[in-house]
Every structure is written in C-alpha cells, then in structure tokens.
C-alpha cells in the first residue's frame, strides 16, 4: 500500500527522511530541505545583501547541492547575493580533471558564473564573503561541513582530547580577524549527508563522486564508523552530537591555545601555516606527506620558500596512498 506524504497528506510519499523519520513526497522533501537551509542562513545571519558569495565548487555532492540550493533560495527570498562558482586549480592530475568537468557541467546547468583560479590568485583576490563549501582540498571532508562532518569532528576531538577544537568545531562560520581574510560558512551544517544525496538523486543533480584521496587519520576513521553506528541506532544522533558540541561549556582557566592565523592565507590556524597551505605546498613540491602529520618545524622553510634538506625530503616523499 502506498504511503501518504505526512506533510501535504495528498501525494504519495517517495522517501523516508533520514533526519526525522517522516515519509514525504518529492516536492515536500525538496521544500523542507531547502527551507531548512534557508532557516540556517537567516538565523545565523550568514550573508548580507549585495555580497558576492563564491561557492567553492569541487564537483562533489556537497558543493553541487549547495550551489543548486543557493541559487534557488537567492531567487525565492531575494537575498540579493551575487553568486559564483569558484574552483581552485590545484594542479592535481587525474582526480582533478574529472571533477573539473563536473563543475563545468554544473555551471551550465545553474547558469552561475564560474571562476577557475589558481591558489595564489585566490588569496590575492578580494571578496565580501566566500562560501568555502569543501575547502581547498576537493571533495574531501577534512573541513567538515555537512551535519555528518560536524558531528564526526565533535567525536574525533573528544577522542583526541582536543578541547579547544571541540569548542570551535561547531561554530557555523569562521570570521577570521586578519585583514582581507575570508570567512567560511557552513549553510549545510544541519543537513544530513544522506539527505544531501537524496536531494541530488531526486533533483537528478550531476556530481562527481569519489573517495577522498587523503586517507583520514585513525581517529577520524574511528569517529566516522562510530557515528554511522550511532545513526543506525537513533537517526537523530547526528544532530544530537552537534547539540552536545554547541552546548558544552569549557571551564574558565583551561588553557586555550591563542588563535593564530595562517601567515599565507589568513585563515585561522594554530601553526604558522594552515593545513590547506601546507598540503598544497606539499603537492606543489611533490612531497605529498608534507600535509599529513606533524611538520610544524618545516613551516619556516616553506614560508621563506627555502628548499628542504635531502633527509627531510626523503621522509616526506614515500607515497603510501
């Protein structure tokens, strides 16, 4: 027997919302999904009228869905935003070529201007605001932007005992103090990954799906597996974990590292160089391991554009992924 949509009570339900368990028809699901993102944007005051908002387009599912929803909402609610797709050419062959093709197809579909910039160009460029949906590292969840990623990061920081990041990782936007630095926002913060996929599936959105080439660290891997299990027991767990992260309170007097900024891009970073910049530098120098693990000592050399010693290079060169 067909199930009726629990919202309009007219049409036939086509899906069960992973987030609430309700059975919805296609249109009611689209509406709910988009409205929820609208609520997130409005309640957090993410954008101002007239701003240029660049959507970091990687061709992955998060950025593809976000680009689509942003365009819909910008028109529906007259945000008055100048939207554009931004793709960073990182010069990684293979992986990047396919995803770039997807971004180009997206651009035609959404009729949004596409700007492909090199890494240097990006940070020399002035913008009012930027939606860094997937960070600089392609369709990789290093930067945690949908609800699953945020919840996973909360759990990972508990496992690592990283109280400073535990408190910060649920922040919806990061406005850094540095001049010309770019705030990064998470309009998909409360959107379940499964619902993002459902949305893309029913909207027939074309995205480039791939496993991230950077293997996550052991703790993130465990946190991810744990979250998946939690979700299977109680689907609201993802949001419940985020709620915990948002409401926990750290004692006064617990040493919190002073928040520094990356000296290259101005993004918040506890080290001289942020993770993105180190990772990118590693790729440019053909030393992929530079972006993985602790290499804080080398930041000075990277900043000064000095060559590394033979021994340092040897350590970083071994590619095992």
């Amino acid at each position, binding site marked *: 027997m067909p199930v009726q949509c*629990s919202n309009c009570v007219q049409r036939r339900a086509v899906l069960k919302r992973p987030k609430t368990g309700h059975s919805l028809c296609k249109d009611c699901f689209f509406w*709910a999904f988009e*409205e929820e993102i609208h609520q997130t944007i409005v309640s957090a005051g993410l954008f101002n009228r007239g701003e240029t908002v660049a959507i970091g387009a990687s061709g992955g599912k998060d950025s593809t869905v976000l680009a689509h929803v942003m365009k819909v909402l910008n028109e529906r609610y007259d945000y008055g935003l100048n939207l554009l797709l931004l793709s960073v050419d990182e010069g990684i062959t293979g992986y990047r070529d396919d995803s770039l093709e997807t971004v180009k197809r997206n651009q035609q579909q959404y009729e949004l201007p596409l700007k492909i910039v090199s890494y240097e160009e990006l940070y020399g460029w002035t913008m009012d605001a930027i939606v860094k949906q997937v960070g600089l590292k392609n369709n990789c969840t*290093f930067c945690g932007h949908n609800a699953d990623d945020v919840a996973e990061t909360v759990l990972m920081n508990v496992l*690592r005992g990283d109280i400073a990041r535990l408190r910060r990782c649920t922040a919806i936007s990061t406005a850094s103090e540095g001049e010309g630095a770019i705030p990064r926002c998470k309009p998909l913060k409360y959107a379940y990954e499964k619902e993002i996929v459902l949305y893309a599936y029913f909207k027939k959105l074309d995205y480039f799906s791939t496993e991230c080439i950077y293997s996550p660290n052991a703790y993130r891997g465990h946190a991810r597996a*744990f979250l998946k299990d939690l979700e299977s*027991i109680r689907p609201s767990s993802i949001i419940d974990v985020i709620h915990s992260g948002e409401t926990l309170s750290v004692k006064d007097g*617990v040493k919190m590292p002073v928040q520094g900024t990356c000296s290259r891009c101005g993004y918040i970073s506890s080290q001289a160089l942020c*993770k993105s910049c180190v990772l990118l530098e590693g790729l440019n120098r053909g030393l992929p391991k530079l972006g993985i693990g602790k290499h804080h000592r080398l930041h000075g050399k990277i900043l000064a554009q000095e060559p590394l010693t033979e021994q340092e290079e040897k350590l970083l060169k071994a590619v095992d992924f």
Partner: protein
Amino acid sequence: MCQVEEDYNGLECKQEKIPVPTLSRKCMKCKEGTAVLIIRVSDAFCRSCFKEYFIHKFRAMLGKNRVIFPQEKVLLAVSGGAASCSMLAQVQEGLSRDAPKRLRFMPGIIYIDDGGACGRSSEERQRSVDQLKSIFTETGFPYFIVPLEQVFSLPTSVLVPGTSDPDPSNPSYKQAVDQYIKEKQNLTEEEAASAVAQLRIEESVCSPEHKLALERLFSSLNTLTAKEDMLHTLRQHLILHVARENGYSKVMMGDSCSRLAVKLLSNIALGRGAALASDTGFSDPRYGDVVIVRPMRDYSSKEIAAYSRMFHVPSVFISGLDTKTHDKASIQRLTESFVTNLQADFPSTVSTIYRTSEKLHTVMPSQGQTTEPASKCLLCLCALDTNVDKASAFHATLVSEQLSQIKLQDTSHDARHCAEGQGCGSGGCCSSNRSPEHQDLKTLLCYSCRLTVKDMGAVDALPPYIITEAEKRQKRSRMKMEISEFLLEDED
C-alpha cells in the same frame, strides 16, 4: 572551524601498547618485590605496593577535593559491581581504626534493586539481595535496599532542587575539620564506636501493583537506549529521596575512569553536552542539598579488577538491562564496546576522554533562576539547555519536524521558544501529531530527556510524582503567561 591537524597517525600510538610483563621484573616502587601487575607503560607493582598505591589514591581523591566534612553522612551507592564494591571496601579501609589519616565521615549504603525493570525473576532478585546483604552486614554500616518499584510512591519534592551552598570549594571546610578535632577530644573512642553501631537497616517491599506499573513503564519505552536512560534517571531519584529522608548530604558513586569515559562519550551522543560536567565530574551539585561525588574516577576498570581479585573484595554479578545484548542494541552499549575496542588499539583512549571531563564546566542557570524549578529539567534536574540561540541544532530539529508533517492547530504553545515569533510560523513549531501529553511534557525537559520521552509510547506510564509535578509546572507557566504583561522582571 574544523581545520584539522591530523596529528595522530596511528603509527605513533601503537608504540604506547602495554608491554608484556617480563617474569623477573621488579616493583618500580620498592625495587624489591616482584612485580605482579603493570598499571601503565612503565609502572610495575608488587602486591603490597599496589595495595598502598590503590588505597592512597582513594584518600588523595577525597583529600584533594575536600568536599566531605567530618561527621557528614555519606550514602554509598553500591550496585554489586566491582567498582562500587571496591569503593565500599576503600571506605571501610579508610574508617578502620589503624588507618593513618583515617576518614571521618558517617557512611551508609544504598542498593537499588532494578530487577523489575530488567526482567529478572523474584527468586533471582532475592538471591542477589541476600548476597549483598551479607556483604553489607559485614561492614557494619547502615544500609538501604530499595526496589525500583518504589518510584511509584515517591513524592513530587524529589524533582525540586534543594537549597544549599553548591560551591565545592566551600571555605568553611577547614572550620568544620577544626571543629571536629576539638569535639573529638571530648569524645571517647567508645562513644564514637557506638554512634556508628546504631544501625539502620531498611528493606522495602514492593506491592504487586507497583510491579505491574514498572513493567508497563519499561515496555512503553520503545528503545533500549531510552530504557537505559530512564532507568538511570529513576535510580537517581530514588537515591536522592533516600538520602534526603535520612539526612545524607553526600552520595558516593563508584564510577571508574573507564566507566566515566564511556559515559562522557555516550552522553555526547545522547545530546547531553550541557550536562557533561555534572554527569562525569568529581562532584555533581545539580540537586542542591545532596551532592553526588565520584571518588573512584581515577581508577581504571583494570586496576579495580586486579585489586578486587588480589585482595578478595566481594562483589555480586547482577545482570542489567543490556546484559547479553549485542553491540548495537543501544547507544550506551555501542559506546561501551567502541571505547573498549579502541582502548585495545590506543591505550590512551580512556584517559584522554576522561581528561576532557575535567576541563568541562557545569552550566548553572543565571542568578534568580536557580530557585525556580522551571529552569531545570523535570527528569534529570540539570539546567535546561533548550533556551538557545536560533542558529542551533535544537532549533534546526524543531524546523525539520515542523516542515515534515501536517500542521495541527496546537493550543498548548511552548512559550519559551515561540514567544519571539519567528520559526513558529503557521502551525507553530510545537505542532505535533503526537498526543498532547507528550507535547506538554516536552517543554519541561532538557534536549536529551526529550529524546527519551520521544521514544515512549504512553507518557501516562510515568510514575505519578513525575506527572503531578509536570502538571504543576505547566499550570504555573500558563499562569505566568496570563499575567506576563504585569510582570516587571522576566525571571524566566
């Protein structure tokens, strides 16, 4: 922001694995005895040094925190498990006359028999109770054996926080100690001993109606996660009630650091972030007049098991709600097996998670709210964590619920969250197709207790004291709404 520094790459952590003890290893402390136990990477103890280390740790924990006053009545919550039985043994040890720096408080024991919620037969329950009784009698301390069914005769006052100075760093601690020492000089040893000997043994029996009511309550909870949470809540209420009735101002819980690590992580998964400090810290001031303390929090379950085995600490195995269930039967159960497995690969897991609990802070309601019971969760008595910013996970879930189901005209409005208008558009963010009772109750609960009640079929299966107190609070909040325009200060 989630700029992740992926510092831990697995390889480093493997090195922390506990080395296999070599046969001839010497005790790290006395350098003479043969090591029988390795606590951490390099701490190998002989039998007698281990005993000393274990005992010292208990006193050090109490000494450091200085919350238990001389002559204070302290109720020890004993479940029969190794951790709480070790706690009991440590208190006995600390009170024994030859102990240097002996403990000076007045202990009592409480055991909550939750067999009725866990489907145990009367015979099984009686057998466990008999075993525990013989352990309790041996200590000479007064004890209370309370069946969980007693929640059906609790008064509503249990749900109202008491008034007392919740500040654990109370400056009068020293005065109290001095006062005690002065008094003690006038007190003969004999008199002191007879004071302890005035035993109070209370064993309540439960009526068949209450037995059925408890069964009904637990079968109305649809998930094991919610059952475990409800059981915990009701246990706490009973312990609190017995403590208050009998003048105990402290309750000691036997949570080990392994247990607390699991609790911290599972409470995060249950949405209890705001209450983490109370739920896992050394002292928990949520009830006001009765303070929960956790003196076993520095011991790992491994240490406790070793000590119990070596020094024959009696304990009783009593099956619980999640005994013999699979790993994914509940969030609490899943977290336990997750932490245990991770601990096997990364031996610092438990201590890392546990240390997090020390850095957390209890969110207390702001001045003026502390006396108002409405600012606390009806069930767990923690400060309500639902009075949050619009840009929050809590509001996002309300929006999702609202957008996913047909709008009902709901008269019972959640004044706290909808007063500001937005987000409560046409149908009201409180609209729901559930029974109105669910809806009314929800507004009185914290985020996490709402989840538990959401997993419940019939709210009227809850014990009367909860339902009566809920009605009372709802009436008050309706009253307040009616007269809101005449109130000069918004104390809510």
